[in-house]
């Protein structure tokens, strides 16, 4: 039994890290641009394809591929902000509907380019670490390690750079940010770029574990939604707490009860939080 508990704990933390990467990007984009980005999952998908192309088609090293994926995602984000989202800055609802359109374009574009069949991604590492009875596959340790590095890097960037402070100011209050000289022409595109770069990085990291196809964006998007509903939209600490909670709940319920119970428990939790604290565990609310 203690073996199962320890194993579930490790699994839950790994899942939580993935969810956190998805949710932080999502909540950042909302905080900065006030847009609920339904295309967020598609950027995860594109990150996975970018990694696949880099590693299997171009034969690049995995680390370089990931770095290129992130750089490419930031540029793409800036472009998408300009072309799609800029006209809807003052209109949350239209921006959100536009993101639905964007999601359809991206997913079906990928379908057109790569076909519906899932693509195989070669394993980056194989084998397992054994700690007592506990078993941690090396592939997961790698994803976890790189994921934590990216998240820590992002945190440092957000807390200790001028630009990061500008972003945080914008998340807090648009008017205050304007007072502090935050320029929307620069911060908006880069904010979106960073948000989707986190999604793309998650896609690139998870591709070796979970495979690549045009349809893989749906699950991470749903998880990001659940995390931000639980944690409070626009709250980064809330997202961190909720992502870990979700990862652990899924892992423990799957291991001790069943997989479908895990989904039901998750949604029951969502409903429960909404009834008691509709703005999320650490959300500020909007009413």
């Amino acid at each position: 039994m203690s073996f199962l508990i320890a194993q579930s704990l490790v699994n839950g933390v790994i899942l939580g890290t993935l969810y956190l990467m998805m949710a932080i990007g999502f909540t950042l984009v909302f905080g900065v641009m006030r847009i609920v980005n339904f295309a967020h999952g598609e950027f995860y998908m594109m990150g996975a394809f970018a990694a696949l192309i880099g590693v299997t088609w171009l034969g690049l090293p995995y680390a370089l591929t990931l770095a290129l994926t992130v750089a490419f995602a930031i540029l793409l984000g800036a472009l998408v902000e300009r072309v799609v989202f800029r006209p809807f800055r003052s209109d949350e609802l239209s921006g959100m509907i536009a993101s639905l359109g964007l999601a359809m374009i991206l997913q079906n574009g990928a379908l057109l380019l790569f076909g519906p069949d899932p693509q195989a991604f070669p394993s980056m590492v194989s084998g397992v670490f054994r700690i007592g009875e506990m078993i941690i596959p090396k592939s997961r340790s790698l994803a976890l390690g790189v994921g934590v590095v990216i998240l820590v890097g992002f945190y440092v960037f957000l807390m200790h750079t001028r630009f990061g402070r500008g972003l945080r100011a914008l998340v807090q209050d648009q008017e205050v940010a304007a007072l502090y000289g935050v320029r929307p022409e620069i911060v908006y595109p880069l904010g979106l770029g960073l948000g989707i770069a986190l999604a793309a990085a998650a896609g690139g990291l998870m591709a070796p574990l979970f495979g690549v196809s045009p349809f893989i964006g749906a699950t991470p998007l749903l998880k990001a939604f659940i995390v931000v509903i639980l944690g409070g939209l626009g709250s980064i600490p809330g997202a961190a707490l909720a992502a870990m909670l979700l990862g652990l709940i899924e892992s423990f319920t799957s291991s001790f009860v069943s997989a479908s119970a895990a989904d039901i428990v998750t949604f029951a939790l969502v409903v429960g939080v909404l009834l008691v604290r509709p703005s999320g565990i650490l959300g500020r609310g909007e009413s």
Partner: protein
Amino acid sequence: MSTVSTMPATGRVSVGGAVFAIALVVLALVPWFTGSTFHFHIAIMVCLAAMASAGLATIAWVGQLSLAHGAFVGIGAYASVLLVTRLGVPFLIALPASAIVAGAVAYLIGKPLLRLCGVYFVLITFALNELFRLVMLEFPSVSGGSSGIAGIPKISLFGIVLEHQPEVYVFTLVMLAFVMALLWTIRNGPLGRRFAAVEENLVLAEASGIPTARTQNAAFVIGSAIAGFTGAIMAHYIGFISPESFAFQLSVSYVIILVTGGRLSLAGPLIGAIFLVPLPEFLRSAQQYQHIIYGVVLILVLRFLPGGLAALPRKLLGSERSGG
């Protein structure tokens, strides 16, 4: 329009309105001109999509959007099918009952949630649609599980079974007219005035003494009840339902119809359904691009025609007035 003097004057477009009404009647008659069973089927699907989207429009009139609309269509469908097949209730009773069930569920959900405004509500309805699907999958004894329920009895009125598409079409058309008439009445009555106030300026509406949360919940309940009503007709026409039939994509398709048609006008859902439901039949040769085209159309309409196709004539005539 209404005799209430303070409502926005729309007398100017009454000629346009008449032309529009005639065009609608002609369009509604198309299947009889062609006599094609397939065209009757498409016409039925147009009516059903228009009806469900009109429900979504009601929610849009208070400045909200529900991404659980497909689930409410599903709730109505399951309610009606279970009433008819398990309890032997006549369809004509099951139909309004399914609207009431959907409306009641919306009320219970909307009451706590509509204290939150804006996109937060949308986010949550997205999750609710998924929850509906999962819950239905969990209770196969009720929902038929993932295999769904097949062989649903056809629509029957006073013992007359609507076997063929033309008969179903007439029935659906009448039901659509009924729903549109109801919405017209609401829009031009006191509640419609509150809806408009809430949509235009929620904070000011609240400060003017309008209970905005309750008003939004009223719109959510009415819109979702219409969705349930549509779902009942759809289930008995198609003859098959499963949890997957009411997944998130269905909700999105209603959003596309509504936005393309015009989300704040009464005619918007009608126009959206008339344009978009038959569109795939014209795009068969470009099938793989179909969804990309939808995505592009959605973004372009939002950007250049925020009032949707319903606002196009006015835009072309150079008038800046909105509403209607």
